[in-house]
């Protein structure tokens, strides 16, 4: 076995690059640790991970340079490599190169990340869950680079072909998107294939990562042991196509959280009915990139759910196949319907759920209850011109998630108090008394792990949007048990962006999510004033919306009338009097 001399040689050859890479990995980890442990400045605490993330990205770029240099030092293609004519076993060379990669590109970042998680008080149980995820993601990221490096002689070839492949795939994706868009297939493709469940999306990514790792490493081993480059390339192309097809059609959720495995036959929901609020139907223009694009309009209405069992909340998740029967021969089918329904805590049903979760308490909300408008139909401008004012029957399938609000935990109102709930760590970062009440700043850290079956997966890329769309999932309320008063926080002020940077979730990576929240509790005229005395007996309580079931309801609105008056601005028309 001549493995060590090769490793030694590669270490020597790549020493400066390796030092730079190791430095970047360590600095990124230090940024993350520093942000979590040392900084007393909340903004810094949240910005350092972003810097750490950028440094990690830079380390990734360095590894993309290092891998081809490592492999091409003893190239597998061409006819001029030095090792071809020396007594170097192909197997030994393969072991040497893979050992190098495992040590520095896989294990080093793994150790750094586990260290960050450990210092961040993530329990050992989650470290064990995180390790295979980090390994899979790290190997998955380097395998395509490794394959390309094994099939090229020099770095310039690697870079040119790599850029060519990325550009080619980009152009194909654009062409595919244009084909779907201009072919009028957007809604069909979206409804048929788009993945809306993040857990399913992760399953798809996991399976493709595992396939890519298995297939990719097989290709690399094959290339090392046989140097049959043409065959390796044809297998790589075939594998790439199979992977794309698999990703397109994969529909098995392997990572579904136990918390989302819920009943679709929830007792007490048999008599539930969903209907439109006919007094508040509005229509307005949809945004167009240019005036040459055909005009479309969206009809919106609040939805009411009758017969929801006591203590439960029905939340609309999807509206499928809406259509309007105008007469025996005239039926309008909706072009498409937005898949993201945003909800607001001001809806009456959420208030009722809070009361049920906190019995005996007087619920004080600093906002008026108001219905939430949902997109129910999209119509072409020309069709609206033709049919506006006409009456008919509106039909659609409405999918609902059924939640129950439950008190999760209580935190004494002291700066630095924290609560560990499974993969989550919630800490009161600051308490600021205001003339009208109190502002509490919370930091939430969460291990968001692929293989954690007990916690719902959170998409760091969309978590801010998810929180905006579903503000009812985690609710912090201020409770004074002696006075039997519960204050809800003020709704986020969309016009006030001063605090925006720290209201967003920031992630060290997809596995550790850090978020900061500012909760403003303001006194109202009809309740006790939030002052020092009130706060001395108060605590912060979290009420979680727990998913307990799903329900599909048919909406059938007989007296539906297509609005005659349309506005350009949706907001203007959906504001209640």
């Amino acid at each position: 076995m001549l493995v060590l001399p090769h490793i030694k040689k590669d270490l020597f050859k790549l020493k400066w690059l390796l030092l730079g890479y190791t430095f970047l990995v360590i600095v990124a980890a230090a940024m993350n640790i520093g942000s979590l442990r040392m900084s007393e400045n909340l903004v810094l605490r949240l910005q350092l991970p972003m810097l750490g993330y950028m440094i990690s990205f830079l380390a990734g770029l360095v590894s993309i340079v290092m891998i081809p240099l490592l492999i091409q030092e003893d190239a597998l293609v061409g006819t001029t490599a030095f090792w071809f004519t020396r007594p170097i076993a192909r197997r030994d060379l393969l072991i040497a190169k893979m050992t190098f990669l495992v040590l520095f590109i896989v294990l080093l970042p793994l150790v750094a990340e586990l260290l960050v998680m450990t210092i961040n008080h993530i329990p050992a149980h989650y470290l064990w869950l995180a390790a295979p995820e980090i390994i899979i993601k790290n190997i998955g990221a380097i395998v395509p680079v490794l394959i390309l490096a094994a099939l090229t002689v020099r770095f310039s070839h690697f870079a040119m072909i790599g850029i060519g492949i990325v550009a080619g795939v980009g152009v194909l994706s654009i062409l595919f998107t244009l084909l779907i868009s201009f072919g009028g297939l957007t809604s069909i493709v979206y409804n048929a294939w788009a993945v809306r469940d993040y857990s399913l999306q992760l399953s798809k990514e996991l399976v493709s990562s595992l396939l890519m790792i298995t297939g990719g490493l097989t290709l690399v081993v094959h290339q090392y042991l046989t140097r049959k480059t043409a065959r390796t390339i044809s297998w790589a192309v075939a594998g790439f196509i199979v992977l794309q097809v698999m990703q397109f059609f994969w529909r098995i959720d392997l990572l579904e959280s136990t918390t989302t495995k819920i009943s679709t036959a929830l007792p007490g929901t048999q008599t539930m009915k969903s209907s439109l609020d006919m007094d508040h139907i509005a229509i307005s223009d949809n945004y167009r990139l240019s005036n040459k694009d055909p005009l479309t309009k969206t009809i919106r209405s609040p939805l009411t759910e009758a017969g929801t069992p006591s203590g439960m909340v029905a939340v609309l998740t999807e509206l499928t196949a809406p259509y309007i029967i105008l007469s025996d021969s005239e039926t309008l089918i909706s072009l498409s319907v937005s898949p993201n329904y945003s909800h607001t805590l001001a809806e009456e049903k959420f208030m009722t759920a809070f009361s049920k979760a906190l019995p005996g308490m007087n619920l004080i909300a600093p906002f008026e209850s108001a219905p939430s408008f949902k997109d129910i139909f999209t119509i072409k401008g020309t069709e609206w011109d033709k049919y506006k004012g006409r009456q008919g029957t509106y039909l659609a399938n409405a999918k609902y998630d059924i939640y129950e609000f439950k008190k999760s935990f209580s935190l004494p109102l002291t700066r630095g108090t924290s609560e560990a709930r499974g993969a989550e760590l919630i800490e009161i970062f600051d308490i600021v008394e205001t003339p009208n009440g109190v502002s509490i700043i919370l930091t939430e850290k969460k291990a968001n792990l692929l293989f954690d079956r007990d916690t719902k997966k959170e998409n760091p890329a969309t978590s801010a949007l998810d929180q905006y769309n579903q503000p009812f999932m985690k609710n912090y309320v201020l409770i004074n048990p002696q006075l039997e008063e519960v204050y809800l926080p003020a709704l986020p002020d969309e016009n006030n962006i001063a605090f925006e940077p720290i209201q967003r979730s920031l992630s060290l990576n997809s596995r550790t999510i850090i978020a900061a929240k500012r909760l403003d509790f303001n006194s109202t005229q009809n309740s006790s004033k939030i002052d020092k005395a009130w706060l001395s007996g108060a605590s912060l309580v979290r009420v979680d919306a727990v998913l307990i079931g799903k329900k599909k309801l048919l909406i059938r609105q007989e007296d539906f009338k297509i609005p005659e008056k349309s506005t350009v601005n949706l907001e203007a028309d959906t504001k209640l009097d």
Partner: protein
Amino acid sequence: MENAIEIRNLTKRFGKNTAVANLDLSIPTGSIFAFLGPNGAGKTTTIKTVMNIMTPTSGSAKILDVDSQKLSPKELMQIGYVSENHDLPLWMTVKQFLAYCKTMYPQWDDQFCQRLLKQFDLPLNKKLRDLSRGMKMKAVLVSSLAYHPKLLILDEPFSGLDPLVRQEFIDGILEITGNREWTIFISSHDIDEVERLADWVGIIDKGHFKVAEKAESLHQRFKKIEFTSDITPAAMPTIPAEWLSFQHKGRAVCFIDSAYEEPASKKKICELFPEASNITVSTLSLKEIFLTLSKQFKMMNL
């Protein structure tokens, strides 16, 4: 082992181009075999196929009694390879390079290595990238000799070297071969340099093998014949096929006899040219033999 290398019916094609066609060649153990041919003749392709750097399209090659496609580190430990087309680890110093090579060969001879280093005057602490082309070739030669290989393959080793370095390089090889029974397979288009070394000669042209025999036999067989004759062009007899580059200017007649034998060849001249006088027979250099054959191949191809 009778032959260090045995090539049977070897063909290598690149798309529609045939680089080597149905090549048969045996290189006796202990010989210094000069593999000659013009640029693009197929010498390097043959060597790379023999060394399992390329896969043959058809045919086979055996090296040290092992099928070239099954060459393992065990056989490669007995083979030294020096080529002008080699990607060396240029970032290494000569010392690091030799230390790295040493790890691959259990039979590495440190004393011999030191002697070679001294003989070639190689700067140990200089990086390979900072060495001249000649010095680089010398460093590779040291790394290929220090483990006493049974077979040394040199692919165009003199290409681009200045005369002084060539001399040192050849002296080095001659000294080594003077002491040991090594087989050397040397490809070159530089015939003058090879002539001093080779005891066997092979000539390849356009992928086809033309000649392979002992240098001594080649020198005996190929002779330059010159004589005077009053023969008129109309009375010129049919020239035998083995008389190459035949020229008749005025009374002077000159040709290369590729099958010269004493006294049969002279007898044949007298039969065909009864009035021939002043017959002189001179020995040809390897270069002259090669040029004669190359012209002949060209004519045959036309």
